[in-house]
């Protein structure tokens, strides 16, 4: 347990970093995933192979990258190539974890980062897929990091930018996506969720410290599967917070 006060971003970073084991490959995007990967390297996963979309493989994350293509994404890396080498590596099944975000997520982990409203007459035009769709198509396990409220957790996303389990069951395989891939976890400031092995609907696994199950349900715009035993996710430890504040994000870009 931590005696320290922590902010929502610190909670997300610490929770996500624990999901990254040592000696594995992870496709790292901008923002919180970068901090989580850096923290994981310093805590329990010194040989976490951070893979960045535009060509960096195996960077040592001493210094925090601010964007997916900048020099820190291949600082002391084992290889510096280009986008197609990286995505083809994922398409061949070499990349275990991938991190995703979006404006909306549905019960099957489908993500929207393209438009709010109709595609051709959008209410809000968002940036688009970027590498999101590629990560969601090819990585074995994807982890979504989201802010948790009922505007973002919706029964049906306005646009499936990145495929989750589509409409459930075998839908991913039927669409031609590689078997055995798909959404693995959703990390929010309220909870950690997984997916029901059969229905593929989002399932509550653990609540964040001090959060009740009711709070999670209230802030989720769809029926979430709740198993009998809900754990409480451990709070960030003193060690994690110190590393995060003094080393990972010493210039205070994110936290």
């Amino acid at each position, binding site marked *: 347990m931590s005696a320290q006060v922590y902010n929502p971003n610190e909670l997300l970073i610490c929770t996500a970093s624990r999901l990254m084991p040592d000696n594995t490959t992870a496709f790292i995007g901008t923002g919180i995933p970068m901090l989580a990967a850096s923290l994981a390297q310093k805590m329990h996963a010194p040989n976490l192979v951070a893979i960045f*979309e*535009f060509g960096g493989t195996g960077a040592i994350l001493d210094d925090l990258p*601010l964007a997916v293509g900048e020099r820190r994404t291949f600082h002391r890396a084992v290889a510096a190539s280009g986008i197609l080498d990286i995505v083809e590596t994922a398409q061949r099944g070499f990349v275990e974890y991938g991190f995703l975000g979006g404006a909306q997520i549905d019960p099957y982990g*489908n993500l929207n980062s393209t438009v709010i409203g109709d595609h051709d007459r959008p209410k809000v*035009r968002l940036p688009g897929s970027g590498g999101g769709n590629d990560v969601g198509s090819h990585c074995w396990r994807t982890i979504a990091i989201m802010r948790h409220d009922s505007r973002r957790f919706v029964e049906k996303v306005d646009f499936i930018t990145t495929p989750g389990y589509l409409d459930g069951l075998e839908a991913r395989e039927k669409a031609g996506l590689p078997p055995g891939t798909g959404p693995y976890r959703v990390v929010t400031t309220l909870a950690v969720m997984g997916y029901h092995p059969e229905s593929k609907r989002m399932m509550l696994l653990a609540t964040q410290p001090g959060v009740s199950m009711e709070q999670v349900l209230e802030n989720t715009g769809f029926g979430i599967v709740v198993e009998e035993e809900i754990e409480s996710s451990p709070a960030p430890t003193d060690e994690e917070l110190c590393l995060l504040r003094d080393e990972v994000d010493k210039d205070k870009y994110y936290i």
Partner: protein
Amino acid sequence: MMKVLQEGIGKLIQPPDLNAFRSSNRDKPKAMIDKRMSEAEAVQEFIHDGDYIGTELYGTVRCPQSLVNEIVRQGKKDLRVAGQGVYELDILLGASLVKALDITYIGMEVYGVSNCLRREVESGRVETCVEWSNAGIAWRFKAAAMGVPFLPARSMLGSDTLKYSSAKVVECPFTGDPMCLLPALILDVGLIHVHRADMYGNAQIDGITGFGAELARASKRLIISAEEIISTEEIRDNPEKTIIPYYLVDAVVEAPFGSHPGEMCYVYERDEDQIKEWIEASKTGETTRAYLEKYIYAVKDHAAYCQLVGEDRLAELKAMVPGR
């Protein structure tokens, strides 16, 4: 006969004409010709209203910004653009020069959504938005670079990204699985900023290469801007560093700090202050125009732009680069 299972409803903005591409490649001079010119000359000669253009970069890294500024200065309009960009495409959108987009990502990364993209698309000034993933667009360049009409991939399947693209899903004739076919994307003009090039266009990049090699080979006309012009002898000393051989290139523009306010790895860092200035300015049409006036319209060329930013500031950005 391959069975087509699904067709994206997005417009094929630039249908690939491979035979015309072969002919135009045959006609390109193979002689070593001095192709150095100013950015004004390069943009004037090789970019026309309505052209389909592409910029190669990642985020704000190695951004062909001095060339994009010149496009804005000359007001090349109704452009069709392959959209994976941050600051440079935001500037083109802010100047209302874009008519159609093959879009993968246009946003400001850690600073959030692009205000200019929102205004231009939500108002309908950008008439067409066709969706792709980053790899989807890069594979489309690779198909063109290979000289083939499409590449199969397992990205985009099952998503609305595919539905609103112009990709097709077929039953793979070998495995029977659904497979996404990405049509080759041949650019009228490609724009790439590199670390160094010789006067003929042999170009070298340090660090990761993004999709530079593919985009260069997918372009009918290619404008290279370079931090420095070096001798061909130096190119020949390290030929394995050359990702763009000269015969692909139509124009070579010397542009130190050509990526500013973006960065150039090992040379100078991103100008965070100016990026933030743009983020603020881009919030309304009026402040966007004021920013464009200050940094582009009121400035004669890239050299004058560098003077406006200031030698001291540029030196600071250079000094911020750590060793390897």
